[in-house]
């Protein structure tokens, strides 16, 4: 299996909000990429934004500025 490392994972209630996050991060050159929601966070399907733990403050500030509310922000092995 691929070796997992600790990542920051930001989940959203809808695909629309997840895509809004990607759009926001791309336009502001913020770090991260879209991945499937890890099973350890939520069973089911959906997309989430995955970045490094150190990116938390930057991304939180961006979301706040854009009025984008995540479902959850956590760290897990990805």
């Amino acid at each position, binding site marked *: 299996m691929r070796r997992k490392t600790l990542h920051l994972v930001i989940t*959203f209630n809808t*695909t*629309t909000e997840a*895509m809004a996050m990607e759009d926001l991060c791309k336009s502001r050159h913020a770090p991260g990429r879209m991945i*499937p929601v890890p099973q350890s966070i939520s069973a*089911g399907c959906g997309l989430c934004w995955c970045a490094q733990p150190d990116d938390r403050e930057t991304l939180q500030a961006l979301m706040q500025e854009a009025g984008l509310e995540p479902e959850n922000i956590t760290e897990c092995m990805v």
Partner: protein
Amino acid sequence: MIYLDNAATTLHKPPEVAAAVVSAMSELGNAGRGAYGASLDGARTIYKVRALLAEFFGAGDPRRIVFTCNSTESLNIALKGLLKPGDHAITTQLEHNSVLRPLYELQKQGVGLTIVQADRLGRVDYADFERAITPQTRLIAATHASNLTGNMLDIARIGEITHRHGLLLVVDASQTAGEVPVDAGQLLADVLCFTGHKGLMGPQGTGGMYVRPGVEIRPLLSGGTGVQSYLKTQPPQMPERLEAGTLNGHGIAGLGAAVRFIMDTGIGKVQAKEQSLMRRFYEGVRGIPGVTVYGDFEAKLRCPIVALNIRGRDSGEVSDALFTEYGIAVRPGAHCAPLMHEALGTKEQGAVRFSFSYYNTEEETDAAIRAVRALAREEET
């Protein structure tokens, strides 16, 4: 062929529209169903068009734009998801069956209904809306423009009434989106329903609705959303709450190209061209002996539509002659607007509707005038 049935669907689209659909069909996966490139590209495309439409309709937040197959679906979602037995709704005689039939269906389930009448020119008395309000009234559903006469309602004026009485305003913008500036905020619309294939010049099978923040609509459909899969109900969050099943991503890509074309061209330029052709046609046919033109042409607020009849001649027969002898495509009959025909006194005869688009020309318009003149002369002999 001279195509003058643009109020039914625009035939001539910006070339970018078909190119976007073809490209999407070759490249896009199912939006929100995976995190691989093609699926993400599907989700990105849909999000970008959502954001574009939010800008186009002055909605602000892309999450307030819901995709549907057409205005009819949007209106069914809005009316059936807002009204319940015991409520009362107000609508107008100008409406299309996409508003009337859902309301008649709801009426059978115990929803009260008042229809504001129109005069022989298709005009309403705005005080009638206020007079129709009862303690049970929940909403007013009104078209932005009659698909038969082209006359527009002053939606902001109705919105002022709904605001003052704490009611909701559901607007059918089928005939105006892409034809005139449509700003949901300025219109005070709580829900604004649009289709993609008419004035917006996108593909058939595309459409949607703007839903104002705070307006809760019960979903008409439930099913897969790609999120919150173990929830037994539709997710509570917009827009997925009202979007069950795979969206028409290919069509939406085309709709995005169409809306981008209109925004780049300028809605004012599109409107000016269409209004000019409509006025040119009206001036050309209004004085022809035997021709009756319907609607209010003194009104500033109009869509590029002219409906007429030639004496008592069957509108279907006139439309057939226009196509077979002059190559001009128009729509006869009732136009799914039964109450408007009753107001105009054309229930039996129907009417011949000419509707113009950005791609029509003055030459085509003049050819249509000549054809009407010839047919009217023929009737005299």
